[in-house]
């Protein structure tokens, strides 16, 4: 077990490093540095800025500094380097370190995303089970229609249509921001819509599969009541595929958050990421990407370990 975890952590660090390197070079391949956009600045000033932030150096040199730290000729910052978890300064939001931006914006995204994941699980698992146990009946058909739609509607469609209906036409829910408790309803629902439908589908098919298994027949032959059969014997087996989906779901919720945060004007990290790309704010892009990648990779690792706890057959090697 410990050996497995160590191995996975090494692989995870390797992947994060790969992502960081890839992002770094990709980003610098994008023409037009961070200061080009500001046309009011004179060429000399740009040169001075480039020099201050080390943009005049060769790419490999910049890369080494970024990864392993130092510089700071009068707060061109980068001190610890990525290796020590220091993502340097934002190039656009003067005076803010990238870490500061992440720590202020991420909790907002995490709150919405976490609620969405919770909603997806709480609704999806029972709904899928109900559909499977009523296979072919009306409840199953209604749920089936819901899930097919849930998977087919892109998140921007869900966002805009719900916003149009509930805040513009009916006027019962706020259309943006996070000032009120009710402002959470639309973004969380929109973000949860796809994973909710997907989990329902997953749960339905795995429940159908489990119900047909021999050990369910054994459980029934023991004289266990239907509810014990269901909750003790079926659920724990049927939930396994949902657990494996948790990893991708977290990643998916992130990508959903770009759109949701844009439409509902939520000051989260997803919106920040998109705007920093348009601004060519190198350090913020780098920092956010590495942070997100690490988050997803760690989540996937945790999910794999959780899986082992539920399914004794899995040998972690």
């Amino acid at each position, binding site marked *: 077990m410990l050996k497995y975890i160590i191995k996975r952590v090494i692989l995870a660090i390797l992947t994060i490093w790969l992502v960081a390197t890839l992002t770094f070079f990709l980003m610098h391949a994008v023409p037009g540095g961070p200061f080009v956009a500001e046309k009011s600045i004179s060429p000399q000033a740009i040169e001075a800025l480039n020099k201050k932030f080390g943009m005049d150096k060769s790419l490999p040199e910049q890369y080494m500094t970024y990864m392993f730290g130092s510089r700071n000729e009068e707060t061109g910052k980068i001190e610890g380097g990525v290796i020590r978890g220091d993502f340097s300064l934002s190039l656009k939001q003067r005076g803010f370190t990238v870490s500061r931006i992440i720590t202020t914006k991420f909790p907002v995204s995490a709150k919405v995303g976490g609620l969405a994941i919770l909603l997806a699980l709480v609704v999806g698992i029972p709904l899928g089970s109900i559909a499977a146990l009523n296979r072919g009946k009306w409840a199953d058909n209604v749920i089936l229609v819901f899930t097919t739609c849930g998977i087919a509607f892109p998140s921007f469609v869900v966002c805009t249509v719900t916003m149009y209906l509930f805040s513009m036409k009916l006027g019962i829910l706020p259309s943006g921001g996070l000032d009120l408790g009710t402002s959470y309803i639309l973004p969380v629902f929109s973000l949860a819509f796809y994973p909710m439908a997907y989990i329902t589908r997953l749960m339905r098919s795995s429940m159908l599969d489990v119900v047909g*298994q*021999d*050990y369910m*027949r*054994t*459980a*029934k*032959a*023991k*004289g*266990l*009541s*239907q509810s014990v059969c269901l909750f003790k*014997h079926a659920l*724990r*087996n049927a939930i396994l595929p949902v657990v494996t989906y948790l990893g991708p779901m977290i990643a998916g919720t992130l990508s959903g958050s770009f759109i949701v945060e844009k439409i509902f004007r939520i000051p989260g990290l997803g919106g920040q990421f998109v705007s920093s790309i348009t601004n060519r704010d190198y350090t913020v892009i780098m920092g956010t990407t590495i942070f997100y990648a690490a988050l997803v990779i760690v989540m996937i690792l945790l999910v794999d370990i959780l899986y082992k706890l*539920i*399914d*004794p*057959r899995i040998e972690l090697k």
Partner: protein
Amino acid sequence: MKKKQNKETEAREIISAKPDRLVDIYHERLSFFTPAGEVKALNDVSLSVKPGEILGIVGESGSGKSVTAYSLMGLTAYPGKLLGGDLWFNGHYVNDMTERDFCKMRGNEVSIIFQDPMTSLNPVYTIGNQIEEVIRLHTDKNRKQAKARALELLELVGINEPEKRLKQYPHELSGGMRQRVMIAIGLACEPKLLIADEPTTALDVTIQAQILELMMDLKKKLDMAIILITHDLGVVAGTCDRIAVMYAGQIVESGTTEEIFYHPSHEYTKGLIASIPKLHEEEHTRLVPIEGTPVDLLNPPKGCPFAPRCVNCMKVCLDRQPAFTEISDTHISKCWLLDKAKWEAERKAEN
């Protein structure tokens, strides 16, 4: 409603006439309603089991052996439906039992062992958990007593290091061991009837013998009846008191083991026995297979279902279903050839 009651009283009379029977099934008809049509899985099946008796049900796959046994426990799988007949078990009229009644009965008065021990145990719970579960359900033993009983059972079914096994998961045990665990679960509440649905089919030949021996041994110790379902005549030969041969959802012949093996009177039974390899005989004759394939139960033939594969098939066999002929008190068979012999004898007598 009224009709149903009539049927019930009729059946009650029959059962009171034969109080020594544990299982009594009269003219059971059962179909599966699949999208492709109605599959007539059981077509007029009658059988009985006395307390402490071992009945073997023999037939090829799809002949309705398992379906008969499952319907007795209320385990008929979706989309199966009982269409007619009367089922009695241990004083219960099975036709009228609710799911709640079945729950009380299953695992307590009647237990079942399935074919594939590899998939019949829940992979995510320990052996101990799965044995204790059934004990605690049907008795008022507490956790500790249930565990003691589970240990006792594991020892009874011949599993070494029972203490350790209780804490293991199914995938850590071999197939033979798992089948022993299944037997332990089945015996936990000392049922009156044990249904063994091809208990040895998925096992190695050496293990097969061990499991059969164990079952016979336990049967003597606990004095229960067994219904042994199998497609392997070799399994039935040494173990059963009586044998019922099934084909295409019907019982075509039934009698004591000696009668079936030494005086088979249905062409299908004869074919089955002819296709057993005989190792002891000096002269090795060719095995005689039964030609053809089983009938399609979606549209069963109107005549004898075995007719298309029967070597001695007659015109009448294709047209009409044969009825049972009583060969002895215990031996009955459904074949037109028997009728022909009788008919010829009668004609001779007339002349």
